[in-house]
């Protein structure tokens, strides 16, 4: 609180902060609602490892799965590092 507001006893105006925070969080929660959530990612990663190991020798750590939101799109990124050929 500033010195001036201490002297005049004015209270902080926080209603606008409340409104902005609510608009952000509610917009996000509405988007998440009804869409598949990303909690299937660990299971999918395990299954991918199982399938790929049938053909190539990979470790669980060599496969990275991630989901990203870019504007209106959701991008599912699967990154597989194949072992170096000897």
């Amino acid at each position, binding site marked *: 609180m500033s010195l001036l507001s201490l002297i005049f006893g004015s*209270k902080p*105006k926080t*209603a606008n902060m*409340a*409104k902005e925070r*609510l*608009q952000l969080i509610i917009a996000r*929660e*509405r988007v998440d609602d009804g869409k598949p959530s990303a909690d299937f990612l660990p299971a999918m990663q395990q299954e991918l490892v199982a399938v790929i190991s049938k053909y190539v020798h990979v470790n669980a750590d060599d496969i990275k799965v991630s989901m990203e939101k870019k504007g209106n799109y959701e991008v599912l990124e699967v990154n597989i590092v194949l072992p170096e050929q000897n």
Partner: protein
Amino acid sequence: MTRIIVVTSGKGGVGKTTTSASFASGLAMRGFKTAVIDFDVGLRNLDLIMGCERRVVYDLVNVISGEATLNQALIKDKHCENLFVLPASQTRDKDALTEEGVEKVLKDLEHLGFEYVICDSPAGIERGAVMALTFADEAIIVTNPEVSSVRDSDRILGILQAKSKRAQAGGEPVKEHLLVTRYSPKRVEDGEMLSYKDVQEILRVPIIGVIPESESVLHASNQGTPAIHIEQSEVAEAYKDVIARFLGEDAPLRFVSYEKPGLFKRLFGG
């Protein structure tokens, strides 16, 4: 045809039971045969707010499980001729509320000639809350101008739009009404509280009323009299306006702007 109206909010302590009691009483005062049901199994309070706690013998769960008839469980209100209260069970598990059971109670109320049934939802998003909104034709979303209440209201709106029978049938959706309660025009004016317009803009639900923060609500609950009966109180007037708007009458919002007290009022109180 019976119209079923759920009073819900997600968050607790925002005024669902106060609103259910006053809304049901207001409809009955207008001559409609009305029932108000407490869905808060295990934490019943509507009976206290309506002032009929000592007359509770049977409850909603007794009726659902066939231990009592609906007529035995319905308690006649002490203020209104055509208003009846169906209390929640205080001892039973909330799983006792089955969808079939609730549906049968609502059908039976229709056969008894009830025009409006008000379902007082418990807080939260669990069984009791979902059962209270499942068969609703209309919903009153009670919200305080405060961040957690607004967010929870948005959540319960999502559940209403997903789990109600009307939503699942894909026909006409549940008609939603926003009721902002515990409103303090002075704090809004001072920039300390969300305005009802802010809340409406965020939730995007048509507003049916604004109930001012007031001491009369506590006076009312102390006596077991719904707040709408407290003579000359702003809260009672605001609830009567809500009833008028609900019935399609034109009633401009009152008690939403702050007027600085004049010198006389400041000197002598008011």
